């Protein structure tokens, strides 16, 4: 029996049923100039024109080494949602052992006790960091975890009928775009809450007195600028107005900061965020993983897999997937989500990372990252033409305003293998020439000084070019 299920007759019958002449006609809406599989005369071919001919393995390895070197040596001061942290060598050594090495969720409990126990430990760690009652076994990434949290809040907040979500624009812009893409066709509206221009966080005195029917308020912690929102006041305000509180967090920061479960009188209701800071390397944008935790009352509205602890017939402890009636293989179209294969392998690494580093280790990483960023900001602000954008506390990122175009500055720094920060012009044009910088525990005093020295030179050179007559300095 062939593996290809469709015979030519099957294909012709199906085309006839939908009244289409050929399979090719199904792709008509794709502009011809974007098609890589068409010959010059427009006829389909089996080769892709932008893909070159094959090379020997040796040649390919040489090319890949060359390209890897292009970004391998840089000193990275960019955060903006993905952070460079030290990962003990043991983490990926253990993660890539055959017993763990699978991205897939273990349905078959009798053959997967190790992986299931690890996921159970992961959930315990996440619930502990966030101060929530339960955690799922992870989602895809931070941005989609926020979208899932919004959908979940609309389902869970049965008092609210309006499907309105208050979304501060201090939430990561990519997260806001992703959430919008996923929820807007379900008639859920994300209403922007502006930050205060002097502090870079939401001014709690500017919150509307009569916000109307809102399903949830999103609180980023830390926010995209690295700033710390007034979480207690915001949480209580949301609850007073019948809204749930969705915390979107960097879990590493929670090793140091107040966990969402402790916010205000009753704590946040749903916690989501990006888990990359915990043992996952920067790797051209992924793979990352999303986290999601919530209060017990909302567990049946939570998407994704949950592993539970139980006992077998002999009373021995065992682990298995639980609460599966929420999920698509049982609940079909009414499932809380169709997330089945989560980021299992990345979560495995993250769990092993947290187990090796420990609660105290995470706290020290967070504290050192905070201290390094303060040191970086202080040092850079000694340069004429650089200043802090906002007053107020921050975690391990900070916004700096420059008197030169960010593009010029960042390009000059990159030429010296320094990735100097994230330009905010695109998403926050009101800040003018501003960059978001981050110095994690991986940066030494010498790294910070090297950055500052180079930036000084950039300003001296560029500053000079703006000034036709040089004052004599001696």
């Amino acid at each position, binding site marked *: 029996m062939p593996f290809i299920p469709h015979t030519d007759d099957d294909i012709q019958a199906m085309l006839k049923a939908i009244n289409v002449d050929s399979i090719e006609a199904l792709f008509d809406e794709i502009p011809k100039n974007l098609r890589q599989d068409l010959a010059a005369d427009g006829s389909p071919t089996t080769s892709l024109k932008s893909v070159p001919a094959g090379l020997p393995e040796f040649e390919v390895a040489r090319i890949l080494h060359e390209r890897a070197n292009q970004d391998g040596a840089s000193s990275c001061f960019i955060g903006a949602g993905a952070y460079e942290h030290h990962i003990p060598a043991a983490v990926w050594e253990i993660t890539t052992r055959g017993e763990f090495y699978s991205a897939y969720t273990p349905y078959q409990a009798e053959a997967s006790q190790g992986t299931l126990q690890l996921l159970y430990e992961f959930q315990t760690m996440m619930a502990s960091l966030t101060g929530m009652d339960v955690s799922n076994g992870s989602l895809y990434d931070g941005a989609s975890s926020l979208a899932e949290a919004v959908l979940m809040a609309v389902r869970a907040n*049965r008092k609210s009928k309006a499907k309105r979500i208050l979304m501060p624009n201090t939430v990561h812009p990519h997260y806001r775009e992703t959430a919008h893409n996923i929820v807007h066709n379900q008639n859920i509206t994300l209403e922007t809450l502006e930050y205060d221009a002097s502090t870079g966080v939401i001014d709690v005195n500017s919150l509307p007195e009569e916000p109307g029917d809102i399903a949830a308020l999103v609180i980023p912690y830390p926010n995209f600028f690295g700033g710390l929102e007034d979480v207690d006041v915001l949480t209580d305000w949301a609850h007073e107005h019948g809204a749930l509180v969705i915390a979107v967090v960097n879990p590493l920061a929670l090793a140091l900061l107040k966990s969402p479960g402790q916010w205000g009188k009753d704590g946040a209701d749903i916690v989501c965020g990006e888990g990359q800071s915990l043992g996952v390397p920067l790797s051209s944008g992924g793979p990352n993983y999303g986290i999601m935790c919530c209060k017990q009352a909302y567990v*049946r509205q939570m998407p994704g897999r949950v592993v539970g602890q139980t006992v077998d017939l002999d009373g021995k402890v065992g682990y298995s997937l639980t609460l599966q*009636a*929420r999920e698509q293989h*049982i*609940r079909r179209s*009414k499932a809380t989500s169709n997330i089945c294969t989560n980021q299992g392998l990345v979560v495995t690494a993250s769990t092993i990372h947290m187990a090796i580093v420990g609660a105290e280790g995470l706290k020290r990483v967070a504290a050192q990252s905070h201290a390094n960023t303060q040191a970086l900001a202080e040092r850079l602000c000694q340069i004429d033409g650089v200043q802090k954008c906002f007053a107020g506390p921050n975690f391990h990122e900070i916004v700096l305003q420059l008197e030169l175009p960010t593009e010029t500055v960042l390009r000059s720094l990159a030429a010296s293998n320094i990735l100097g920060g994230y330009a905010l012009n695109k998403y926050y044009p009101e800040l003018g020439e501003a960059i978001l910088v981050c110095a994690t525990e991986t940066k030494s005093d010498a790294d910070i000084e090297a950055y500052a020295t180079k930036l000084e030179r950039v300003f001296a050179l560029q500053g000079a070019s703006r000034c036709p007559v040089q004052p004599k300095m001696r």
Partner: protein
Amino acid sequence: MSEVPENLKYAKSHEWVLIDGDTATVGITEHAQDLLGDLVFIELPDVGTTLEAGTECAVVESVKAASDVFCPMSGEVTEVNEDLVDAPETVNSSPYDGGWLFKMTISNAAEANDLFDPETYSGLAADDH
């Protein structure tokens, strides 16, 4: 053969309804709970919700499935069985008594004519096996 009380009306989707004047009490049949198995969670409608006959009004979740409960008649929910929040298994042990789901004020008594009598429902449930 599961129990089908004589004083109730039945829907094809295995709900029962007890009509008393303009008040109706709604639950799921013994046959339905038998098909579902041990119930672990029940999501009830909010008091004050207006429901239309044939629409989803509750969810019963067992260890192996989650099923929608369809409202047998139109009306407004006046009371829900709060005991089921902590003891959903009551629906298994006492589907026609302690395991009622909610009460409602019915808005169209004629809809009762569309429901099955006990004898017809018994035949329907028997065919399921």
